[in-house]
């Protein structure tokens, strides 16, 4: 990202206008997902220009539109209460606030229970627990300096579990359901508040390299507001050092 604040504000303005080329739009999506200042600047542009949208002439939809919506709602159904439902990520929702972190922690607790009772899931989550620290409830001091991020696509099953150990300076990535489109790679990014995304490397989907330790950027020690995201990149990773493809997953960090 360009550090120039003027350039950045105009990029956000063009984002609101809808004129950014797709790769830049994807990069801004990531910026918005993780940076409150970027969201504030976007909101300011939305507010400045909103009267133009509100000026659109009204057109009454045909009578078949609502029934079609109702059918699609019914087809989706009320989702069963799955832990990840409490993570209102949307496509790229607002970055974590305290409420969401609390909710996510609750989700993780329930998840671990699930992992303990469902053998199939336990197999998938065992490494997460092992990497994330001692099993829950093993005493005070547990998890100091350790964080986890549940990287998910909004409302869907988690795709990656990222655990961070700031003392060791490592990130471990556990893909659960992440699939790179053919000919592409999934690249993991760390984005500190207000900072440009830093690559943490490519996400392995091969079972043999699942548990991959990645070096953390130095400033990741101050993890407040940090977010992880995964973008789809050309095979081998982003050619520019910044995300160029769509951001498919994102998730905030929570203290383990």
């Amino acid at each position: 990202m360009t550090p120039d604040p003027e350039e950045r504000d105009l990029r956000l303005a063009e984002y609101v206008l809808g004129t950014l080329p797709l790769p830049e739009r994807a990069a801004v999506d990531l910026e918005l997902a993780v940076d409150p200042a970027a969201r504030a600047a976007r909101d300011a542009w939305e507010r400045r220009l909103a009267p133009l949208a509100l000026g659109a002439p009204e057109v009454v939809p045909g009578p078949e539109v609502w029934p079609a919506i109702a059918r699609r709602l019914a087809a989706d159904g009320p989702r069963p209460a799955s832990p990840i439902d409490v993570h209102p990520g949307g496509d790229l929702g607002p970055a974590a606030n305290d409420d969401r972190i609390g909710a996510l922690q609750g989700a993780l607790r329930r998840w671990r229970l699930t992992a303990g009772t469902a053998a199939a899931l336990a197999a998938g989550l065992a490494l997460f627990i092992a990497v994330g620290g001692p099993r829950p409830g093993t005493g005070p001091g547990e998890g100091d300096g350790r964080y986890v991020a549940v990287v998910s696509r909004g409302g869907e099953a988690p795709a990656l579990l990222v655990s961070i150990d700031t003392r060791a300076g490592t990130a471990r990535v556990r893909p659960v359901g992440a699939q790179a489109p053919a000919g592409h790679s999934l690249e993991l990014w760390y984005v500190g508040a207000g900072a440009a995304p830093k690559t943490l490397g490519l996400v392995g989907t091969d079972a043999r390299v699942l548990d991959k330790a990645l070096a953390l950027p130095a400033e990741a020690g101050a993890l407040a507001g940090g977010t992880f995201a995964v973008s789809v990149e050309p095979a081998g990773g982003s050619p520019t050092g910044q995300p160029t493809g769509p951001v498919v997953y994102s998730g905030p960090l929570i203290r383990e």
Partner: protein
Amino acid sequence: MRASPLRDGPPRGGSQPDGPSADDPARTDAVLVDLIARIARRDEAALRTLYDRTAPKLLGVVLRIQSDRGLAEDVLQDVFLRIWQKAATYSPAAGRPLAWLCTIARNRAIDGVRRRSETQGPVTEDGEDWVERLADPHDSEGAILGRNALQACLGRLEALHRDCIVLAYCEGQSREDLALRYDRPVSTIKTWLHRGLATLRGCLDGAP
């Protein structure tokens, strides 16, 4: 087709048939905020009520960008499913509820035309026409705060800069669409957009 079936006819001089309170923007906002909160709690009846109240406006927003009526109504379906999914993320602090809904509609419509890499169809309006719509006393949202300021500030931009901004925002024109329309390189369009946006920001933020 762009005119509203409900709103055709002579201007009504600002008086609305629903009575004085229905036209009070603060009251309208409060109703919409409440509906969005209920939708966040999975209240389908609230979504239906929101649909009845806002679908004509949102379809109008979509139709300026996606002029095919059938495709636009498909987009409108997506818009309401999106509202259903995202209602929990709405915060009144971030902006007025109808503006939030319009943003979802614009984004879905623009995503749709970009995904198909459509070049925009024949342009039916000049940027100036959309700016004039801002002043339409016929519009129940006429009391929107900032409307007059935006109109005044757009009026101060160079005409080409203003038209690019307005056509992009209202009709979803891409830089490439605008380059074709004005027979200029894409880089020139980008420069126009940036100059116009920077001037607009300075004017609006300096306004009382």
